[in-house]
């Protein structure tokens, strides 16, 4: 089967406008603008079963249909903040197949009658922003972007915007704040962006990969796309495979592909031929899926089925952990990441990630007690369900599933008997930990 999103792997120089156009590029956009009503575009996307590729898996067409048509103007924003540790698919798409992504963004803009769209890139993607700027200029020159396109009334401009290097700006409302020139901190939801988004106006935000699917859906039809993948999760997904595998990288595969196929057929198997101990299907935010049974590896990867394993597929940045990994090491890594990236806006995340990082640091360095493990689990649960956005929640995923699903790793890390409390001042009345 040929590639749908990573088409540049089939077609050399697809990141050149003429090559992209020769291969059917922008035909779908021109066709939509000249022959379709905006809501017909939305309907095609809705019928295709496409779900958002940013992690939440929300049906894309349905999101578009939520746009508030009583409030104008509308905006469309591409979330190119790709910051989840273990995720590197958007970068390849924008490098190799940028026009397909931009065409998808243009189609989405047309579908919701937005005349301005933004590409919000993480700060480290400044080279990508430069090349996208060039490509956008080429499109304007070619009459694919600009005023009164294809002889009609529809006008569209696309702008890139660089973030300043904060994980939180991948959260859609923090992204909007940052795009508005403010401090990147999430907003209270509801209202959701399709009602109140950028500059207070209705806004559609989708992931780069989501947009990259759309031209092909418009070109080949909703039914064609729906036939790929599973009933729950239509189409293809770019899996970012990393961890203890021989061939880490991006793999575009239909939803429903098993973990086994991804790891062994495509990823070349586990390094040193060790056994898979756990899988993090959605980067650092993942719950740890226990691979104590070979059957787990035969689980098809789609949103619903992965959930039965006690995890979420999310952005499908699959990190493979083998039996050389102790989970206290892993949790130490993820917690430190979230402590560093917490935006500081809400209390449980700001204080909780700091606290958790102190505890796991103790445990991982052999200075912890069994009481510390209980405390860590308790603090993580105290964070859960209390935060303003999902970041705080994500910070607890590996902690809770790590401790609950791999208790032995933590038992091994701490001394069996409580150590004298190293860190506690022996104040009168203060309880020893």
């Amino acid at each position: 089967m040929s590639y749908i999103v990573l088409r540049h792997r089939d077609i050399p120089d697809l990141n050149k406008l003429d090559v992209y156009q020769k291969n059917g590029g922008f035909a779908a956009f021109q066709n939509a603008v000249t022959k379709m009503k905006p809501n017909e575009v939305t309907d095609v996307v809705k019928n295709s079963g496409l779900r958002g590729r940013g992690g939440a898996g929300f049906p894309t067409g349905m999101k578009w249909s939520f746009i508030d048509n009583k409030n104008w103007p509308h905006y469309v924003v591409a979330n190119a903040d790709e910051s989840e540790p273990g995720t590197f698919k958007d970068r390849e798409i924008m490098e190799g197949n940028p026009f397909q992504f931009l065409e998808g963004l243009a189609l989405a803009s047309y579908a919701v009658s937005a005349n301005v769209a933004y590409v919000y890139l993480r700060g480290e993607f400044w080279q990508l922003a430069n090349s996208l700027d060039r490509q956008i200029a080429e499109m304007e020159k070619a009459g694919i972007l600009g005023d009164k396109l294809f002889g009609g009334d529809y006008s569209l401009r696309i702008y890139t915007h660089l973030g300043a290097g904060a994980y939180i700006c991948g959260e859609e409302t923090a992204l909007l704040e940052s795009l508005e020139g403010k401090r990147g901190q999430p907003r209270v939801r509801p209202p959701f962006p399709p009602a109140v988004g950028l500059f207070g106006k209705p806004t559609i935000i989708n992931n780069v990969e989501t947009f990259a699917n759309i031209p092909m859906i418009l070109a080949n039809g909703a039914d064609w796309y729906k036939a790929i993948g599973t009933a729950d999760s239509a189409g293809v997904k770019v899996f970012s495979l990393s961890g203890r595998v021989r061939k880490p990288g991006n793999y575009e595969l239909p939803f429903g592909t098993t973990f086994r196929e991804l790891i062994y057929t495509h990823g070349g198997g586990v390094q040193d031929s060790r056994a898979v101990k756990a899988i993090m299907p959605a980067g650092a935010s993942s719950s740890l899926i226990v691979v104590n049974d070979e059957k787990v590896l035969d689980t098809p990867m789609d949103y619903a089925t992965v959930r039965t394993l006690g995890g979420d597929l999310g952005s499908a940045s699959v990190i493979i952990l083998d039996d050389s990994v102790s989970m206290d090491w892993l949790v130490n890594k993820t917690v430190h990441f979230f402590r560093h990236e917490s935006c500081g806006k809400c209390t449980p995340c700001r204080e909780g990630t700091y606290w958790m990082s102190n505890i796991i640091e103790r445990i991982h360095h052999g200075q912890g007690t069994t009481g510390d493990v209980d405390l860590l689990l308790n603090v993580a649960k105290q964070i859960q369900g209390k935060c303003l956005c999902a970041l705080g929640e994500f910070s607890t995923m590996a902690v809770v599933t790590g401790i609950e699903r791999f208790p032995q790793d933590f038992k091994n890390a701490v001394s069996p008997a409580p150590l004298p409390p190293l860190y506690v001042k022996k104040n009168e009345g203060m309880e020893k930990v």
Partner: protein
Amino acid sequence: MTNQVTLTIDGKQVTVPAGIGVVDAAKMVGIDIPVFCHHPKLEPVGMCRMCLVEIGRPMRDRATGQIVMENGAPKIQFLPKLETACTNKVEEGMVVLSQSAKAKDGQRGTVEFLLTSHPLDCPVCDKGGECPLQNLTMAHGPGKSRFLFDEKLRLGKRVPLGDLIVLDQERCIQCARCIRFQDEIAGDSVLGFDDRSRSTRIITFSDPGFDSVFSGNTSDICPVGALTTRDFRFEARPWELESAASICTQCPVGCNITLNTRREARASGDFVVKRVMPRQNEEVNEIWICDKGRFAHHYTDSKKRLTQPLVRSSKVEKSVHTSWDAATQLAADKFLAAKENFVILASGRLANEDLFNLKSLADRAGGQAYLYSRMGGGEFTTQVGVGAGTNFANMGAGTTIIVAASDLYQEAPIWYLRVKQAADRGATLIVLNARETKLDRYASFVVRYAYGDEVKSVNDLAKSEKIGEAFTKAENAAILFGSDGLGLDGTSNLAAACAKLLQDTGHVGKPNNGLIGVWERANDQGAWEMGFQVAEDLAEILRGKSVYMVGADPVGDDPALATALEGAAFVAVQDVMETATTEIADVVLPAQAFTEREGTLTSGERRVQRFYSAVPPTGESEADFAITARLASHMDIKLEGKSVSAAFENLAEAVKSFEGLSYAKISEVKPQWPIVGRGDMYYGGTTYENTMGLGAHLTAAAQGGETVRIPQVQTETAPRPKANELLAVPVNKLYDRGTTVMMSANLLRERIGSPSVVLHPESAKNLGVEGGQLVNISFDGVSGDVAVKLDDTISVGVVLVPREMGLAIHEPVPAQVRSLVKVE
């Protein structure tokens, strides 16, 4: 009538206005949901997660949209997660559980999280005793911490955000109340967060730091001891403080304040004022005060206070202590002898009762009584002044407000806030000024005129299509006029033009309509009401007279007046502090400060408000009304000198606009929203609840149906400077070198600054000077060397001269300006 919503909070069925948050709804019915970041005056943000509650909503059938019923009642569906009660608006049929085990567990968790990084230095914290974090920890927190003490972050304990506010980074819980107050209420966005995660900290990005005249309010709403004022830091524990209700005397707004006092060794065990706090009056100052009101109170216990009656036998000798009887007898004899040459000069800092006694004395002794003010137009504010029931809080869409020739931010900061907020609510704001002011940002229309054309520009307003319509067709319209760039004549003419505009368009005699004078002093309006007039040529009037000077310092203010007073027959000065005028006085009568006595003041909005004594009198000083009565008794004129409320009764009987008012009436209170006070500090901040009186409005003559005769006025008032001259224009500065401010100069030095004038860069270039360099400026017998500040928003050809900053300027006047830069 707003829509009402009925919901259940903790089993209690409540009906509240639609659109409000759950926390506020609960508060309305007496249920306290704990909060840190939420403040009823600010937009909810849901940051601190303290108000976590369970919220259930009536379940709707997905297909039909109908509410699903269960056992005859709507089926309530709860979300799996706790929700913040501050950000969720009330909904019909909502069920809120703030006391459930799950909700309490969430709240307990938030307190525990907040305390992990908190230093718990309550024993040395200024907030201890009135600290929301302390109180909510006791109510909702865990008794013990599971966080290791040694892992607490060590951060800056003394980080000055500006010269008035100090930040303790360890105590800060990042609730952003201060940032949001500055952004949403004050409109001075000078604070923000820096960095992220646990390194998040408050910073200021203005230069100078925390550049806002409202900064003190942030320490009131700070829910921890993170923001302290330089004035009160380490000064006292809150529980040692007594409190007395008072009214701020720094400007005509009449902010309600509470004076916190404590016995101090330095006062031989007597009470002294430790801090000034806002006292809630939603119709006047809400729960805010400006920094001048908060910090410039130190003159009341300064070493320069007059403590005993003084008398001087000849001009060359020093004054010596005498008895009250001797001093007042001497003055009375002189005044009796002077007959019609007896002149009273009273300032607007005096209470209504003082002014009434003075006016009565002048009337009955056959003398003249003048108000010492550089602003005219009071005869119009007494007649078409804002009607009883006026409240800026009720001004919004449908109301038009004109601010004419006033830099409200500098002259009356709280009115600036109130006008800004009215504009935020949709009121049409028209700013008329010769120069740019801060309020322009919120104006729908900005009208610029050349100095001298202010009357013309008011007259032309109605002719302008858009602006005219915005004013004439407005449901309500009010005009605030001030003295920015204007002297006595200018303000009188401007007031007349404004009064005419209001009367012609029917915007008089009803609430939220009419004229407001942005006076120099707190009680100028009261003096106008009692019939005081402003002298056109004061120097001429003083020459050769026997003068009873009360609360005024003409010698210090104006060399011309100093000369005039040299030729006076006799001068008795009654004041709070030593001034240049007391130096030349024949008799000096020491008066009590407003902190030491009772009385009433009439605000610019014509609201009569009562202040109470907070500390014992200094030395032998007496209240102004009592001194006047004592003096009058020696002239066989009987005035009330003992009971201040009886004096007020006399006033209410004699002066029509005060009719029907009494101490009882102005001491009335009613419930106010938001609820504030000692038990509700977690919610509204440390602002004091108003239990001592909200005051009452005077009735304007126009409210009785009187039509005001308004004389034709000149349309051009400013002199035109010659080619080699600039037009010197007086402007007002909040922190000037006035006596009351200078006594708090330790605190306010940076804000007061050194004497300077403001030039357009082009004018400066023509003169060959740069910003910061010295020039000599001379006009009208005044000359001085001052530094130049540059401002490209003012006109070329004018030089702005701040009042009370070393150069006696009263009105626009042609001036010679020359560079003092030495040419190499």
